[in-house]
């Protein structure tokens, strides 16, 4: 299983690919909507890409609870363990 930092940086790559936000800006405390300006449609794209990359399932109902990068990283860690 990937380390927390590996998950964060993998997620950052996905966010950059989909939204153009620089990968270095995707830090743990950042809010997807307030800090990174990611809209709900892009967020779904990010989640689908993350499911594929990390081999996990993130139910659609869960997406609204992933407010920050840290929330998403923790969810992926738990879902993968």
């Amino acid at each position, binding site marked *: 299983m990937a380390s927390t930092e590996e998950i964060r940086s993998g997620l950052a790559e996905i966010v950059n690919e989909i939204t153009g936000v620089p990968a270095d800006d995707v830090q743990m405390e950042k809010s997807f909507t307030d800090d990174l300006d990611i809209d709900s449609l892009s967020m779904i794209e990010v989640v*689908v890409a993350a499911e594929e990359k990390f081999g996990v399932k993130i139910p659609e109902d869960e997406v609204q609870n992933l407010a920050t990068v840290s929330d998403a990283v923790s969810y992926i860690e738990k879902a993968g363990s």
Partner: protein
Amino acid sequence: MTRSQAPVVVTGLGASTPVGGDVASTWEALLAGQNGVRPLTEEWVADMPVRFGAPAAVDPAGALPRVQARRLDRSAQFAVVAGREAWTDAGFEGKAGDAGIDPDRLGVVCASGIGGLHTLLSNYDLLRDVGPGKVSPLAIPMLMPNSSAANVGLEFDARAGVHAPVSACSSGAEAIAHGSDMIRSGRADVVVAGGIEAVIHPLPIAAFAKMMALSKRNDEPERASRPFDRDRDGFVLGEGGALLVLESAEHAHARGARIYAELAGVGMSADAHHIAQPEPDGTGVVSAIRKALESAGLDPTEIGHINCHATSTPVGDAAESVALRKVFGEAISNVPVTAPKSMVGHLLGGTGAVEALVTILSMHHRLAPPTINIDNLDEEIQLDVIRGEPRKLDGGPDAAMSNSFGFGGHNVVLAFDRP
């Protein structure tokens, strides 16, 4: 006859076509008689009844920031690229507010005949092959037929109204007609108007071929698009489009804008004859031409050039010639006409806008591009078709017309005059 109130002028031009990624390269290529038709190289082509087309000379995705490009269907990519060029060409920068335009007085009318077909079909492939979880959350905003208009509106902060008329191959011209109406009726000062299309894909090729609309000249694709030639056998599918900046003459004069032409009049009619066949006696087309001339306050003798719809189908080209003779009489023999589809193919919803642009540039430069691939002018076509070299329009009347007709029996004629 008197011309309608609130004159509308053209102050900006933008295009992406099979012969050029912008207006300047497109115009240069058309004057040189350059051919945009070529064999298609995609893997799916092998099994197709038609294995050639007129793809855009420049990939529109490459002209946009990567993230913006991936959120737009190819059709909307063409719209944004052409829209930006037209906007800059008109002397505007940034959004409406930065450009000194009240956003509530800026409109967009951007047409597509079919819409975001690549997005629709690639998402259907994902649904069928993998499942609903793979369908993109952006599929709907990318495939909806108003997506191009909406994205151009977002680009410039247009709030007077953003519209997407759909009338098959007359869509682009109809968009310009509606844009003109927005200004004439006082709903907008500036309208970005035109049309685009991006459907070079096996489904439309198979379907158009099945209805006997496409040329099947697979052995010599570069000779396939031959409007008015005796041996024409159908149109060639192209992609791309054009957008124009239309502006009230008052608004344009107040800011000292460069004016290419006046959009003097528009005429629209419907055949009510057949879903896909043109009316052989041209009654609907005649009506659209007469309405355009009437709204422009022009007599047929004041038309010095006609940009024909002429798609290279046996029936359509002949019907257009019949209609023109009905309106102009014998005098039509003295009006030089041309058919740009011989070089760029048929851009469906984009074609009326590209041809309006070519008509405007022909007037502006007093020089009209030739029609290529005519080995033997069809005896039924009694028109002065420009062939070989571009034709100087000096000495003739100033005004010009562009014809567009679409499946469904839609007829749109735009009449332009010198400002």
